[in-house]
């Protein structure tokens, strides 16, 4: 009898739409990261992907602004009950936007210098890029399902890879090889690490309380243990 009223269901609210748009933002983040990292690792000519890369970054930025506006409208209509989810979303759209920014930085690096295949770090960087790319692919589905176990596994893997980046940066700084090449490689590891950090932050919103978001450098065991299991 009230079938037509199902269309008024609160679950069909703008929140679901914002979640979808946010998922597209992460997908775009993965696309732009893959393109920039491939250019740096010599798989693609930077000039070939330049236009697509900047267009994707612009789309990410526009989606962030759109979601921000929608968050305000959603909060105004639904009031305090939806405040926590609105604030979380406001925080993590920034992370998705930063993935685009760091990928752009990686692209700038690719324009200046491309990694030579016979370098000691080349194979490691390729493997790292593939793992980050796979993680970004997983991020959309984990965020969509809000699965706590998968989120914690994602964060654990991300933490390990971040540690790996730190080790490589330290090794580069203390090594005696050519300085220009070394700086570029160090920066690449740094950008990879930042992309990882922001993707971890997005997924941490599945299991972490609002006030703990963005504290990427806090004790990892605390994040995944006590607080994360709440």
């Amino acid at each position, binding site marked *: *009898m*009230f079938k037509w*009223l*199902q269309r*008024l*269901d*609160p679950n*069909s*609210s*703008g929140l679901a739409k914002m979640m979808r748009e946010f998922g597209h933002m992460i997908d775009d983040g993965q696309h732009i990261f893959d393109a920039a990292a491939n250019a740096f690792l010599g798989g693609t000519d930077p000039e070939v992907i330049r236009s697509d890369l900047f267009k994707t970054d612009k789309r990410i930025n526009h989606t962030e602004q759109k979601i*921000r*506006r*929608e968050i*305000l*409208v*959603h*909060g*105004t*209509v*639904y009031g305090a*009950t939806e405040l926590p989810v609105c604030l979380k979303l406001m925080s993590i759209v920034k992370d998705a936007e930063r993935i685009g920014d760091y990928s752009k930085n990686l692209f700038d690096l690719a324009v200046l210098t491309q990694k030579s295949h016979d370098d000691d770090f080349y194979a490691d960087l390729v493997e790292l890029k593939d793992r980050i790319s796979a993680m970004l692919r997983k991020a959309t589905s984990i965020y969509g399902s809000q699965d706590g176990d998968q989120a914690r596994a994602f964060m654990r893997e991300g933490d390990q890879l971040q540690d790996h980046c730190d080790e490589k940066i330290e090794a580069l700084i203390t090594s005696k090889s050519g300085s220009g090449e070394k700086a570029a490689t160090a920066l690449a590891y740094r950008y990879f690490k930042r992309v990882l950090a922001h993707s971890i932050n997005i997924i941490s919103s599945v299991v972490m309380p609002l006030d703990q978001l963005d504290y990427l450098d806090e004790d990892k065991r605390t994040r995944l243990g006590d607080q994360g299991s709440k």
Partner: protein
Amino acid sequence: MPALKRIEERPTWVRVVELIAFLLAFFVAVKLMGSSIKMLGKEQADALWAGIRNPFAGLCVGILSTVLVQSSSVTTAAIVGLVGEGQISVTLAVPMVMGANIGTSITNTLVALGHMTRSQEFRRAFAGATMHDFFNLIAVVVFLPLELLTGFLSNAAEWLTKPFTALAGGEKFSSPLAEAFKSITQGIQGFVTDTLGATGFWAAVILIVVALVVLFFALMRIARIMRSLMAARFERALNNVLQKSGLIAIVIGMVITASVQSSSITTSLLVPMFGAGILSLEAGFPVTLGANLGTTVTALIASLATSHPAGLTIALVHMLFNLAGILLIYPIPRIRAIPLRLARGLANMAVERRYWVIVYILGVFVVLPLVGILILK
């Protein structure tokens, strides 16, 4: 006993049933309002209406009563009840309806005060809220004298009422709803006079208070339930407003307001968006105009419960007045800019000197109407 769930958490069918129940209560209250005044007796009623014989005093009564109940829907529904039961004439009621339009704009202005501690946000929010006030003030300044001189609004409304009156069997007709509620109101009146033992003047006073309380409560609940049922649609509509303007925005404002029976809800929803800077005054203005038009639906619905076609006439006056306001101000960009410019000017003054906020709110919505009533009654 288990605690009652919040409205938003109740199943849809429960909310629909509640909505119907409160709508019926609303009709009963409108009917009761008009018929209870009759019990006052001619002398007392005449003394009561003597105060609004001066149209400007009527305007002030409309402003003040709406400010007091924070709802133009309550005021206009009560007026429709009085006119529809033959207690006051359409001519006397027109200025009060116009006053209700002004009075209702205080609500979103008060909402804007929530941004007061942040200057730039407050400037935008206050301007966004008061452009509605200025639109209503301009419409009254132009159309009240014109109505007094020519009666163009009441004549047009009477002309529009005629087909309905003829269709329904002439002046003696009362709507089927009015007939249905007659026995209920008679029952309530019987309870007050026979069971409680109140008679004459005091019985009328008790019944008028009961009618006003039920009217207020029913409208508030209708607004709340409709808001919970329609929230997802409002959200989509408001997101559309951010991208579109003009006629579509007027329609959006009208539909939201007609759904919740309150222009204040619509205009107050816009205030945080103005404050945050995501909605410009130019884009939000047509939504407030639509809200003005949408709120006239309450009076039209209320007229269904009255016994006399004049109830429909005054409801149509309310609608035509707001329509005329839109046609006067919106189509020509230079005229459209006037309320916006005035609102921006006031907001700038309010940001520089906060006492202007108090001067404006108390002056326009309390002091002037009070002084007006005292001098002109």
